[in-house]
């Protein structure tokens, strides 16, 4: 028998993240590496376990392999427990029919049976696309206190960026009066973080109605939330003030990494009470060579640094050879940077081999080298250029 859960989390991890270009050609956005050892999805997963939520459905769709392998049993996040756990939920065939997830709400709708197994009071719907530390249990208490049917976490964003988000217009008691998805002329800057708490009985009703509506895009922001408002349900905005970053573009991913290099980063990864867990690569500590020069950088296990690294984030197993210079860049797992090569304002993905005396990137837009790219000697890759995974540059 499965005991009743207070709350089950559903983590939407099917996002393509197309604006990340070559970085998401072979992986879903939640699997994008960040911060020298993490993947974006480590943040919501770690938040879940720290918030006392031990049952997490991870909804995958786009390029699921890397994510499925990464999550496994959920053990790295302590989610391999008896009564719950991490469950990867790809779309599947039911009887004679089967379909992809047509939208965020449809993904939850198609997995109603999974949620019903636990018969929870609340369902926490999360996006696997954001970097933040948040105690969801506080938000659930807020939801309970307000006797809400749905609670949407909101964060203040700069006014000029507000039109990229779902914007909440609320009464003084934070009850949501109006919800506008990506409005052209936003009335305020309280943006949805893509974190929702729903009372399951209410959500179930709306999901079924939404699925029966052929005109619906089956999206929470576009359809389900407006329908709930229209239906007079109690929707509340839960204000969050803390670090929250949507790394939707190459620039914002680069920026989010660089923000970790400031003297006192807003996102404190050293906080022992809210450790961010990730799958461990089992590498020895990194080695800084006799002539290495490393400043203002993050360097992870298994790296060998013989050259110069400045304002950069270096992932496990990276080798920076003698005379190489990595500046203002992100170099991901198992990438090899040859002698005399200069990497400037670039993101170099996993398992790339860069030969000797190359110049990658420069002043201007961020250059991106996709995973497993082979770069020969003396190659120049201009600022802003993106090289697709697996290509060979000679």
């Amino acid at each position, binding site marked *: 028998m499965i005991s009743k859960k207070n709350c089950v989390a559903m983590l939407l991890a099917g996002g393509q993240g197309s604006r990340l270009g070559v970085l998401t050609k072979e992986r879903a956005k939640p699997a994008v590496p960040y911060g020298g050892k993490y993947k974006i999805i480590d943040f919501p997963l770690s938040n879940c376990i720290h918030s006392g939520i031990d049952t997490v459905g991870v909804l995958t769709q786009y390029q699921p392999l890397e994510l499925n392998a990464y999550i496994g049993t959920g053990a790295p996040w302590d989610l391999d427990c008896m009564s719950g756990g991490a469950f990867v939920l790809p779309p599947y065939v039911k009887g004679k029919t089967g379909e992809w997830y047509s939208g965020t709400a449809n993904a939850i709708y198609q997995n109603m049976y999974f949620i019903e197994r636990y018969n929870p009071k609340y369902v926490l719907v999360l996006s696997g696309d954001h970097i933040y530390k948040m105690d969801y249990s506080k938000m659930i208490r807020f939801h309970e206190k307000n006797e809400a049917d749905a609670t949407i976490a909101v964060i203040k964003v700069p006014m000029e960026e507000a039109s990229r988000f779902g914007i909440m217009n609320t009464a003084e008691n934070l009850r949501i009066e109006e919800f506008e998805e990506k409005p052209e002329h936003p009335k305020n800057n309280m943006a949805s973080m893509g974190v929702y708490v729903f009372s399951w009985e209410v959500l179930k009703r709306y999901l079924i109605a939404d699925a029966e509506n052929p005109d619906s895009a089956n999206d929470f922001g576009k359809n389900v939330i407006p329908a709930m408002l229209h239906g007079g349900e109690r929707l509340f905005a839960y204000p969050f003030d803390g670090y929250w970053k949507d790394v939707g573009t190459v620039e914002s991913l680069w920026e989010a990494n660089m923000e970790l290099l400031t003297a006192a980063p807003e996102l404190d990864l050293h906080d022992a009470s809210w450790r961010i867990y990730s799958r461990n690569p*089992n590498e*020895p500590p*990194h080695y800084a060579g006799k*002539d290495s020069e490393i400043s203002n950088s993050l*360097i992870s296990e298994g790296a060998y640094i013989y050259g110069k690294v400045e304002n950069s984030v270096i992932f496990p197993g990276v080798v920076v050879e003698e005379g190489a210079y990595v500046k203002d860049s992100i170099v991901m797992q198992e990438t090899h940077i040859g002698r005399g090569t200069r990497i400037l304002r670039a993101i170099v993905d996993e398992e790339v081999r860069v030969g000797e005396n190359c110049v990658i990137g420069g002043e201007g837009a961020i250059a991106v080298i996709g995973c497993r790219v082979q770069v020969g000697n003396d190659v120049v890759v201009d600022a802003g250029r993106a090289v697709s995974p697996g290509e060979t540059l000679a």
Partner: protein
Amino acid sequence: MLNNNVFGLIYAGEQNMNLIELASKRAIGALPVGGRYRAIDFIMSNMVNSGVRNVGVIAQKNYHSLMDHLGSGKDWDLNRKNDGLFILPPFDTNENQGSYRGLCDAVKNSMGYIHRTSQQYCILTGSYTVYNTTYNDLLQFHMDNNADITLLYNTESMVHENESRFKDLRLYMNEEGRVVDMEFNSMMPTSTAVGMDIYIVRKDLLEYLVEDAISRGKYDFVADVLVPNLKRLKIFGYEHKGYVARLHSVASYFRMNMDMLQPEAQKDLFHTGHPVYTKIKDEVPVKYGANANVKNSIIANGCIIEGTVENSVLFRSVYVGKGTTIKDSIIMQDSEIYQNCWIEDAILDKQVQVRSGRRLIGSASYPVIIKKGAIV
């Protein structure tokens, strides 16, 4: 596969006064080495990488840190339904009053576990030898020679001055590799083959040999079992060719950590294709400040470096303040060295705090040791 028929038995209860403060509060196998490991991780990983799925660890005194480290065996994939990791602490009986008088004594007290193992062969080893290998070739060699006992050894050409001998077992072998003579802690050894404190032996033979020794009031495996039986038993030696370190004194402990700064030792210990597993701590990558200056050092995750570090090994979550210099030193987990300090030829145990402006200088042959949790 051969390995399904082997279980591992690790004796982690060695007593060694030469390690002074470093091992006074912990088992030797729990000694922190190489920035993020405990000595026993290497042997444990060797076992697991050889396909051994049943490992007993005989603990004796001060095994709290060892048990904390090994836990359920999850980090070595030894949390199995059948077999897996067994920690074997001592218990008071009429025969055993708490302290093992030698390896035979320790094995004798683990007979309950040994009897229950379903495997036919035993890899019996201590916990203070650091190397990376798999035991597959050793096992094959043992079978091919129809041996009773096979020892792993390495060739030590260097004799380190100033180091007292601890379990220095010299082997003399004929062309086939059969051991014809042994010397234990010899003053003037003429063989360069040194035993690595690891033996492969059939389980029933081990049971017999140990019971036999104990019944005669003998407790040492080498002096009381191997040496008297050189003619009666077919004892073979098998050479391990890579890097080997033995943690039998402060000097050798210090040297082993410093060896990890050398490419040869790095390659032999970490790039053999067989990973070294250890307890996972989920630390953040190392943060280098704007004025950090780090040369020829190993820095484990979780550290924050704002000063200068040279020829040193820093364990997880060490803090090095601005204006501080750390040279030729080993700094263990969670130690904090504030601003404008100078630390040279020192071993700082875990959770040491060095307040601003302090100087701690030892010498290469006799490093200063600051004990766990001390505030300087």
